[in-house]
């Protein structure tokens, strides 16, 4: 009893402090506090996150394994052209993934190194804020999820996402899925889609498909940020990690170790 | 709805069901009863002295059977009657379209309820549901009270058909009123104002009862007037065999002010054209009050026109400005008394125009005739002679909704007058409002009814009077010319009433005329003054 009280008080101060930091009174924090509070997840259950250890990606095969695992189990189509392209997890060179942190004298191998990019499952997701139907929403465990039954295809979320993480089904994907995974549905034309942190696998107690695909070299580490003993927490407290576009205040849930 | 100032129209409805609200005979709202001699002279049943105010209307013993049988006969003869009894859904679209309802606020003047007066009896005696369910199915017994209600309200309808325009099924209360009046006539229940003219017309050829020599001398009096104003001597012919055209017009034009100015207009126009035409003293009535009693009587009066045309050997018939005369000629005459194969399809002798639309009846409306003349420049017109007039045009119910003459008179007026203003669009053309005195209601004892019924029309005139200074209400109907002056004096003083051909004659520059200083009414012409 007394312990709970203490814990609550501690959380209360934490909340106060963070809202002061994020600039109480700004419109975004107002929205954040009302509906999909970025703070609410921290004291309730899990907060899933991923650490991408870029040093462990050595060969092209390392990337491909992860990408293929994800795209196959989620029935992500391959249209073979950039216009219709749909991707959940893919690579982008450092200079594109981190344009603000690029400089002339950066190590060449880093500069052009492909970085694994995917939906950041932000604490403060602008895509969730703008969705007019709550088709995109943030779960208690921090996953920014989509309800494909509800999406009207307005693509406001695509405009709002600063990470280019969202894809739209410009046409019927069905013929472009090479091998269908009958355990997981496809999408219909006219809806937006993106990485879901394999929430369907998490529900079964399995790690995300990409994480599992590289379990040998542990290039992707997945875990609960709210658990101080989790692997992600351990890595983050021991190694220097960066996130994409931190200045936007979205608080991504994907961390990079360069 | 708000109350109107002058009459305090009360649109509130009685608490009680309308079936339980018997008709209250209000003074000024109904006409005198028919006189026995008038009924006798045309062989109508039950001639007797009676007054609508009497408790006892001196009905024959078997009056109820007569009515029910009469209804049965008419249900079998008229699809309109049977259908209109059956298909009304009481949507209420007609309710506020009736000028009598607008002017009186009496709910039984809503066309739907006027028809229900008859329909309720029909249901009782002719439908299974009415017989079985009675009042629940909207049915009621025929009683003397019901009969009196019929008489009161069927003579508060001018058969103007405005409701029919708005009805989604085209239910025409005029049809129902006509049947209702026919049924009443089976018991000798008519009004004096209708029965008298009918008797006159039957015996003497016209409603006013002008005998042939009087008819001629009346017109000769008008000729003198014309000579005074124009210096032109006109010599029309009467009952002349071999003329090309027989001219028929309502006798009101010949006799009464301001219709006689219109009549002078006809005389001047025909003279100027050198038209080969004749008047008839036998068929000296275009109007047909028989139409307000029964189909049969209307036919009996109308028969004279074709008979006279045949006797005189004319080629075709030209009809003057009149409302119900044209409803009858247009929709009934050929069916009753045709085929007029002894006449030939009408052709204007002046312009050569074939009047295709009259090729079977062989009867041409004078507005059609004159519009055609103006179109082909056959008349020399000086519209400035009508510059003292600011004219608006009242569409007569019968020519509007029973015929569709709208543009012809307007075309004429615009060519003979410089100042023409339309009344608001929902009060003209097919939506025109009645003068309030049509279908034989033009008596003096029911003046209150007439003023109330004419209120909507007067109100529209008042609007253009105040907005544009309108001072002349033109029309193509003899009843209008008889009824509207009183209505205008009451509601919109300062507006006179004229037939379109009076305006034509004012503007008509005649060969050899002297310089006109006055119009036909003896009023100085504005342009001369200046």
């Amino acid at each position, binding site marked *: 009893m007394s312990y709970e009280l203490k814990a609550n008080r501690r959380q209360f101060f934490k909340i106060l402090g963070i809202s002061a930091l994020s600039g109480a009174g700004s419109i975004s924090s107002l929205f954040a506090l009302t509906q999909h509070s970025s703070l609410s997840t921290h004291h309730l259950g899990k907060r899933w996150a991923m650490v991408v250890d870029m040093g462990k990606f050595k060969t092209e095969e390392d990337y491909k394994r992860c990408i293929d695992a994800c795209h196959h189990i989620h*029935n992500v189509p391959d249209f073979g052209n950039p216009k219709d392209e749909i991707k959940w997890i893919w690579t982008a060179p450092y200079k594109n993934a981190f344009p603000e942190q690029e400089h002339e004298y950066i190590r060449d191998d880093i500069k052009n190194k492909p970085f694994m990019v995917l939906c950041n499952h932000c604490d403060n997701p602008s895509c969730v804020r703008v969705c007019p139907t709550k088709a995109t*929403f943030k*779960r*208690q*465990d921090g996953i920014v*999820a989509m*309800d*494909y*039954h509800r999406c009207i295809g307005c693509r406001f979320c695509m405009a709002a996402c600063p990470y280019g993480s969202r894809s739209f089904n410009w046409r*019927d994907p069905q013929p472009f899925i090479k091998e*269908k*995974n*009958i*355990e*997981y*549905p*496809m*999408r*219909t*034309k006219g809806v937006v889609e993106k990485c879901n942190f394999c*929430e369907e696998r998490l*529900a079964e107690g399995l790690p995300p498909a990409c994480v599992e695909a590289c379990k040998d070299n542990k290039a992707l580490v997945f875990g609960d940020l709210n658990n101080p003993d989790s692997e992600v927490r351990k890595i983050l407290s021991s190694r220097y990690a960066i996130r994409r576009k931190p200045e936007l205040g979205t608080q991504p849930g994907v961390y990079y170790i360069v | 709805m708000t109350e109107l100032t002058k009459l305090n129209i009360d649109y509130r409805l009685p608490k009680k069901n309308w079936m339980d609200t018997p008709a209250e005979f209000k003074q000024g709202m109904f006409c005198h009863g028919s006189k026995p001699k008038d009924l006798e002279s045309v062989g109508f049943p039950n001639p007797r002295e009676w007054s609508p105010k009497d408790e006892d209307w001196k009905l024959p013993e078997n009056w109820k059977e007569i009515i029910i049988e009469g209804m049965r006969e008419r249900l079998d003869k008229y699809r309109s009657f049977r259908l209109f009894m059956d298909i009304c859904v009481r949507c209420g679209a007609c309710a506020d379209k009736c000028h009598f309802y607008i002017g009186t606020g009496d709910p039984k003047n809503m066309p739907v309820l006027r028809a229900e007066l008859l329909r309720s009896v029909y249901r009782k005696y002719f439908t299974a549901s009415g017989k079985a369910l009675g009042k629940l199915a909207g049915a009621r017994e025929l009683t003397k009270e019901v009969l009196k209600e019929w008489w009161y309200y069927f003579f508060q309808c001018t058969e103007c058909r405005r409701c029919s325009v708005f009805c989604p099924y085209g239910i025409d209360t005029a049809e129902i009123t006509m049947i209702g009046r026919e049924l009443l006539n089976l018991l000798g229940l008519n009004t004096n104002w209708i029965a008298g003219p009918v008797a006159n017309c039957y015996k003497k050829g016209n409603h006013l009862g002008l005998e042939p020599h009087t008819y001629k001398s009346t017109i000769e009096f008008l000729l003198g007037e014309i000579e005074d104003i124009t210096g032109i001597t006109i010599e029309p012919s009467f009952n002349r065999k071999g003329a090309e055209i027989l001219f028929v017009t309502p006798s009101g034009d010949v006799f009464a002010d301001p219709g006689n100015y219109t009549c002078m207009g006809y005389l001047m126009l025909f003279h100027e054209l050198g038209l080969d035409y004749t008047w008839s003293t036998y068929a000296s009535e275009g109007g047909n009050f028989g139409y307000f009693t029964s189909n049969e009587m209307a036919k009996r009066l109308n028969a004279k026109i074709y008979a006279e045309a045949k006797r005189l050997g004319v080629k075709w018939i030209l009809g003057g400005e009149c409302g119900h005369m044209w409803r009858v000629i247009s929709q009934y005459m050929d069916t009753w008394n045709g085929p007029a194969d002894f006449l030939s399809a009408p052709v204007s002798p002046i312009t050569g125009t074939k009047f295709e639309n009259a090729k079977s009846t062989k009867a041409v409306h004078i507005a059609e005739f004159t519009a055609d003349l103006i179109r082909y420049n056959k008349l020399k017109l000086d519209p400035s002679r009508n510059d003292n007039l600011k004219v608006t045009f009242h569409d007569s119910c019968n020519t509007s909704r029973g015929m569709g003459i709208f543009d012809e008179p307007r075309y004429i007026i615009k060519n003979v007058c410089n100042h023409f203003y339309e009344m608001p669009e929902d009060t003209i053309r097919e939506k025109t409002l009645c003068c309030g005195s049509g279908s034989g209601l033009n008596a003096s004892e029911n003046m209150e009814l007439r003023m109330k019924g004419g209120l909507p029309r007067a109100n529209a005139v008042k609007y253009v009077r105040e907005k544009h200074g309108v001072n002349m209400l033109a029309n193509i109907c003899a009843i209008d010319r008889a009824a509207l002056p009183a209505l205008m004096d009451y509601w919109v003083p300062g507006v006179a009433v004229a037939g379109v051909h009076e305006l034509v004659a004012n503007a008509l520059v005649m060969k050899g005329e002297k310089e006109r200083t006055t119009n036909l009414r003896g009023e100085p012409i504005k342009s001369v003054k200046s």
Partner: protein
Amino acid sequence: MYDGNKIITGLIIFACLVTFPFLYNFGKANAKPDPKLDTPVIQQMKEKRCIETKEFMRANHMQLLDEWREAVRDGKRVYVNSSGESYKISLQNTCLKCHSNTKEFCDECHDYMSVKIYCWDCHIRVKS
């Protein structure tokens, strides 16, 4: 004027329109739908039954599916049926595991009732 011909023509048209359902089906054998249950998974079941009674499913399966759609939102993935048994909420992995024969099962009635569904825009029917 009676216009008898026109009226009789009209009445015949009227009668044809009203009796059209009768005429349309005249001489046609309208087979009742017969949804097939003979998939391997069902064959192996000891007790062949769906998650709710047959009657309930017939009338209400669409509502059930509609409710199941919401599962993705609240992460509630378990359906407890009227007799207290739990099932995983998933069209793909629960319903279609047994009813893998969508053509013979689903389409049978939907075609019969002329009900167009858009489930298969996303959900994968196994080719049988």
